[in-house]
């Protein structure tokens, strides 16, 4: 510990660099004036009011502890002191206040997260891409593979009942896969796996005060927890959609070949797929990639009530993400249909 001439007390572990100017303006860019000298630190331990302090029992220090502590303190004090005129480096956006009554909706969280993407730490997105993307790959491929095979099997049975012709099953299947199925199914799977994970993790941190601890450490929970997941999800959802779609196409093709004897040339015919289908599929996967982390993080940020609250938040995240996928899928599909129809 050292005392500077102004009386400011320091127990810094050495000099710290002057922080750069904040990324945001406003009052947060202030500096800390040296404060008044602390009082009441006399060796006698007298209180500020001057009254004597009763016997302080139970905290006698062993000599080795005392010398160890003194050594640590002296080594720290030997280096230069903390500059008390530190400019705030990285003020928080202040959009989301999960601890208090300021409760916003998912759009509020989306706005905060989008703003926070400009202030993420390097490497944060890559870590989340691994968590959200790589670890979901097997699950997504497995589900889409089975669903693809089942769909082609059912379509073939129905087609044979009505018109004994299976030649259009492949082209129709590819169209629906590109336009909607791959994106929607992938997103619904991510809503369950990723959405639940995000809500449970952030919700647990909320109920154990870790979000408040982040805020007190000057680490914005939205910047650290939500924004990297948002960016990672937007990047990996289209990739997972493509990979999952490819697996669904493979299993569908094999089902057509083995069950209905549809040749590869006949089945793998993309004549029904046009630019509107590709646009719809791509737009949907990006929108779903945005919606899932926002709905889930929002549920987590506003968790309350202990472990039951975390359970409720997880449920809200999965239900909200799934509904968002369904509704967004409908809206984007209809929009692309209208625009493509108008263009045609």
């Amino acid at each position: 510990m050292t005392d500077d001439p102004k009386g400011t007390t320091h127990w810094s572990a050495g000099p710290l660099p002057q922080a750069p100017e904040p990324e945001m303006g406003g009052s947060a860019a202030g500096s800390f004036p040296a404060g008044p000298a602390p009082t009441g630190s006399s060796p006698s331990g007298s209180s500020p009011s001057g009254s004597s302090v009763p016997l302080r029992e139970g905290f006698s220090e062993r000599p080795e502890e005392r010398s160890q502590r003194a050594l640590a303190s002296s080594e720290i004090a030997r280096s230069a002191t903390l500059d008390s005129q530190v400019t705030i480096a990285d003020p928080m956006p202040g959009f989301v206040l999960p601890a208090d009554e300021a409760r916003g909706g998912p759009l509020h969280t989306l706005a905060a997260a989008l703003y926070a993407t400009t202030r993420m730490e390097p490497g944060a997105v890559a870590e989340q891409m691994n968590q959200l993307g790589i670890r979901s790959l097997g699950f997504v491929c497995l589900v889409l593979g089975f669903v693809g095979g089942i769909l082609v099997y059912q379509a073939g049975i129905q087609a044979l009942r009505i018109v004994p012709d299976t030649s259009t099953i492949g082209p129709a299947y590819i169209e629906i896969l590109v336009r909607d199925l791959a994106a929607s199914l992938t997103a619904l799977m991510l809503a369950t796996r990723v959405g639940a994970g995000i809500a449970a993790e952030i919700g647990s941190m909320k109920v154990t005060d870790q979000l408040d601890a982040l805020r007190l450490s000057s680490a914005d929970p939205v910047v650290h927890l939500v924004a990297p997941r948002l960016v990672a999800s937007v990047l990996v959802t289209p990739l997972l959609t493509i990979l999952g779609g490819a697996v669904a196409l493979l299993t569908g093709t094999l089902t057509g070949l083995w069950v209905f004897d549809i040749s590869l040339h006949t089945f793998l015919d993309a004549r029904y797929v046009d630019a509107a289908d590709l646009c719809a599929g791509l737009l949907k996967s990006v929108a779903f990639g945005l919606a899932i982390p926002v709905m889930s993080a929002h549920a987590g940020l506003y968790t309350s009530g202990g472990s039951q609250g975390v359970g409720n938040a997880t449920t809200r995240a999965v239900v909200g993400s799934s509904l968002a996928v369904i509704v967004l899928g409908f809206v984007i599909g209809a929009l692309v249909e209208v625009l493509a129809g108008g263009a045609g």
Partner: protein
Amino acid sequence: MIEFRGVSKSFGDKVILDGVDLTAGSGEILFVIGTSGAGKSVLIQHVVGLLRPDAGRVLVDGEDVTDYDEHRFYEVRKKCALVFQHATLFDSMTCAENVALPLRKHFRLKGDEALRRAEEFLALVQMERFGATYPSALGDGLRKRVAVARALTLSPRYILFDEPTTSLDPVSARRVDALIVDLARRQGATCVVVSHDLRSIFSIADRVAMLYKGRVRALGTPQAIRDTTDPIVRQFIEGRNEGPLETT
């Protein structure tokens, strides 16, 4: 100096604070005591902006911080550190990484440099051997020491402790007491301690404030509190089941 002037706070219909007037003087150890649910933790969370009062003002160093937004509380949180009841270390980080976080965020120290500084702050609380340990491997007492080290990184003039000895064994509790005394006496920090650990209260407090029904029921030196004739305060410090004290 931290001042609460007529601070009121309700959650729904439940009134927690009902016009609290209290001042924590520079360099003192002020204990805020009271039954569970009396609003002790709620009170100190107002200082760092984790809660906002429904009415009344909160002043830090004479500066009214009541209506500060998240931006402006950034400054206040550098002066006032809060050590939570359950330490609230981040499970995914080692102890050193936990302590390094405020250094990285406030001072933009690079990873290795921040970790080196963090080890030095851990040494201040005799935890330098546990820098590479994850919090889940530590007991409550050691976790609280790490939390204190994290709080010290920003060189706060005020340190708010929320039930620092709750759930600790007696030896660990006394060590935390010693740490608080060290911070106040040697480092000159003002320590506001929320607690109902009577041994701590009567061992290390300079002043004691008892919250009851949303207000300050008693305020004085430990000896004055011990000598009071107020039946509610007496029942609390004597830990008697029978008496006029109502618990929520």
